[in-house]
């Protein structure tokens, strides 16, 4: 064996690097396409937008982000602190319950809470047992308001903050806490002066995820009558017929997204110092006896109760009560089939490409492969609606080229083979959720020492043997995790699916949206229940890994 790298090795490296770069480019393509669309002049639209649309959209978006951020932070941090600092009855259950609201997509949360609090709905009927109907009516909170949207979206997204805060509070080494205690700080001061400041980087990560999800949402805000930037982009294009105007507003929004991504990156960077202690000694949890324990338990029960249990039970009740289980119609089965096939296909592609990108980065760490890895992680930040908007033009252009070529060859024209088929939806999923796979795979690779590669190479193993015998077995947990997360993310995805789905294709998410937008959401209860039930699995999986492995439960 020569000391220089064998030819085959270089070739494999080059192939994977090229693939990685191409994947990175594909992820950035829709954003470039949006920028190009935005260059077209829109003569008479902006005066109207500036006068009537933008002020409201900016205000609603800002208030929604601020509100949801505050609700999610308060619930997430509060619950995480109580869960890590104290022992109380029911805590074992709550560990599993607390993150479950992540299984409720924002739009389903909105549909359910509108149903529950509407006039002549469940709450109104219960109140009417004691009060005259019209007086009871006055007590119903208005769900279709900005405040309603803030509460509903905050309730289903707080687990992002909770999970990152709890992981942080758990790994903060006991030394700091004990030092604070010795200096005479009480529990509250320890929390405010030591734990919270040290957890700030992790909170930035959790919070930026919450805010990105809020920006991505269109189903909930549209349904609740909140006219955010996202909703305004949707209506500018679809109701005012101005694609360029929508693209220009999308560019504005991408600046907000970029700011959030920077916040998240900043958080990650700072994390390194915070979690520097190797296998920290965990601070002892203080047992809370009697009434105090019950109060702590109840306080921690409220967020998952409203964020998960109530919507889940409501959907279950509606599905049973309308005997939807008994009469599963062909339409629902069709939607279920489409959802599963699209999600599975996208998941397979995402995993393969995620593996390629991270492999390239491991084998040939160059500027190009690092940039591809970065680009692949950026797709998640682009709201699904903007992604779809940016994909349409290049996909149709590609199809036109194919059709022109077919015409030139005298063959029959195939029509829109990409833009007019499920391929468009799959491409959108792949771009949007690539970050999940490449992020988790990358984290998995970081745990595989480089010595393994060297030993394999010395013993003359080819790179593929390396992949098969070393990487894949060791990456298995990370790949499974990525597969589950991506699959469920695809299942829940609404905005891009809505705009890109072809003829005869409804998914569970789009059929729920159609029912809701036509005022008969209850008929979509079973479809909603299926999405929620499927989403529970990855959330539970996440919970397992979010716990410190060697720490007490």
């Amino acid at each position: 064996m020569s000391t220089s790298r064998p030819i085959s090795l270089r070739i494999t490296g080059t192939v994977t690097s090229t693939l990685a770069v191409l994947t990175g480019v594909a992820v950035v393509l829709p954003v470039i396409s949006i920028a190009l669309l935005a260059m077209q002049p829109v003569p008479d639209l902006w005066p109207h937008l500036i006068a009537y649309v933008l002020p409201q959209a900016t205000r609603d978006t800002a208030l929604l982000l601020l509100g949801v951020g505050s609700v999610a932070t308060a619930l997430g941090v509060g619950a995480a602190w109580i869960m890590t600092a104290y022992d109380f009855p029911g805590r074992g259950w709550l560990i599993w319950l607390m993150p479950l609201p992540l299984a409720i997509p924002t739009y389903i949360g909105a549909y359910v809470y509108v149903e529950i609090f509407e006039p002549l709905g469940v709450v109104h009927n219960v109140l009417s047992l004691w009060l005259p109907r019209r007086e009871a009516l006055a007590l119903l909170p208005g769900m279709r308001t900005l405040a309603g949207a803030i509460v509903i979206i905050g309730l289903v997204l707080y687990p992002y903050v909770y999970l990152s805060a709890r992981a942080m509070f758990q790994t903060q080494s006991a030394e700091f806490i004990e030092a604070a205690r010795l200096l005479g700080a009480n529990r509250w001061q320890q929390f405010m002066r030591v734990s919270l400041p040290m957890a700030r980087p992790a909170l930035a990560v959790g919070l930026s995820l919450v805010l990105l999800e809020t920006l991505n949402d269109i189903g909930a805000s549209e349904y609740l009558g909140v006219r955010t930037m996202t909703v305004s982009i949707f209506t500018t294009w679809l109701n005012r017929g101005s694609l360029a105007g929508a693209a220009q507003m999308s560019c504005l929004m991408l600046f907000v997204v970029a700011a959030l991504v920077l916040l998240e990156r900043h958080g990650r960077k700072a994390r390194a110092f915070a979690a520097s202690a190797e296998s920290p000694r965990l601070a002892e949890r203080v047992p809370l006896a009697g009434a105090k324990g019950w109060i702590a338990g109840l306080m921690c029960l409220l967020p998952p109760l409203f964020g998960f249990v109530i919507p889940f039970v409501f959907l279950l009740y509606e599905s049973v009560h309308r005997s939807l289980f008994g009469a599963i119609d062909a339409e629902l089965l069709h939607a279920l089939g489409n959802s599963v096939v699209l999600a599975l296909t996208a998941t397979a592609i995402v995993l393969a490409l995620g593996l390629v990108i991270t492999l390239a980065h491991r084998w040939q760490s160059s500027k190009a492969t690092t940039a591809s890895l970065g680009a692949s992680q950026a797709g998640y930040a682009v709201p699904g609606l903007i992604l779809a908007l940016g994909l349409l033009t290049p996909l149709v252009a590609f199809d036109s080229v194919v059709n022109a070529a077919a015409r030139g060859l005298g063959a029959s024209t195939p029509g829109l083979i990409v833009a007019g088929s499920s391929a468009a939806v799959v491409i959108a999923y792949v771009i949007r959720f690539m970050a999940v796979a490449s992020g988790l795979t990358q984290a998995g690779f970081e745990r595989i020492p480089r010595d393994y590669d060297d030993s394999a190479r010395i013993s003359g193993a080819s790179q593929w043997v390396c992949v098969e015998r070393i990487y894949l077995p060791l990456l298995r947990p990370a790949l499974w995790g990525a597969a589950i997360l991506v699959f469920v993310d695809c299942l829940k995805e609404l905005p891009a699916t809505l705009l890109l789905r072809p003829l005869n294709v409804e998914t569970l998410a789009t059929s729920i949206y159609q029912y809701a937008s036509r005022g008969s959401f209850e008929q979509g209860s079973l479809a909603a229940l299926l999405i929620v039930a499927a989403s529970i699995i990855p959330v539970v999986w996440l919970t397992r890994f979010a716990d410190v492995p060697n720490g007490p439960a």
Partner: protein
Amino acid sequence: MSRFRDLSIAAVAAGATTLSAAAAFAQAGEVNVYTYRESKLVQPLFDAFTKDTGIKVNVISASSGLEQRIKTEGANSPADVLLTVDIGRMDDAVKAEIAQPIKSAKLDETVPVRFRDPNGYWYGISMRARVVYASNERVKQDAITYEELADPKWKGKICIRSGQHIYNNALFAAYVAKHGEAKAEEWLKGLKANLAQKPSGGDREQARDVAAGKCDIAIGNTYYWALMKNVDADKKPWADATKVILPTFADGGTHVNLSGVLLAKNAPNKANAIKLIEWLVEDKAQHMYADVNYEYPVRAGVAVNPTIAGYGKLNPDALPIAKIAENRKTASTLVDKVGFDN
């Protein structure tokens, strides 16, 4: 054969299947319909059409944006037929240049001149009226004008869906056409002041809010009330608590909107598309529109459903549809201007 290779082959195969599942358009015996109508309402029609002709109907249904989608798809769009719910949408489609004139003697014979585009770009296939759902308990009068909706006597008593919704947009555009922009703005301000709550939800929810006591009158389309009364068991109480009044403009007509049909500019299955459009105005389909969807048929000699007939005799507003179309933008701007939806 290694497992890794198996996996990658499986992944590629899965992707390829999705690609090959992409409908091969322009096949014989198909027609591609883009529809704004609820799939549950139009599917029975399509099933009957397939039974009669053997032509398979592919459907994509959405609540907004189909014209833009067809426009973006461009020359190779699979769209054959666009089924819309309002003159506003048809006007959008013609303006977006995604339609082509339909040449059919059969259609010209069946569809009255006032329910079709003079250039043949669209044909109306059914009609609905924008009416008032009034509380049986709290509203004594049995007649009302649209102008009266801005009368302060209704302060805090009216429920309505978003002013930007296509149905309200057409009603407000008709008002602009009749009374001029300034008067229409005054009227919208008055109507806004009479609202019991911020506009939200659909027409059915407005009926529900009347039933719950939130408001005394609501604005909605004729067929929603009939569907609640006859089809949707759990919404029957909402219809039972209300009565339908056919309102009129001061000059005597009730505002109606058309559901209509267009032929896509680049329709790959043009012949089948025209077959479907012609079939939709034949006796069988028109009876389905009347009895399954509770709409007013456009074909002479097809009776309206008894529930709809029970509202009283409809006297459609004589304002030409083109007039409504040209005032839509003004109406939409006025809604923003008076903060109707805030």
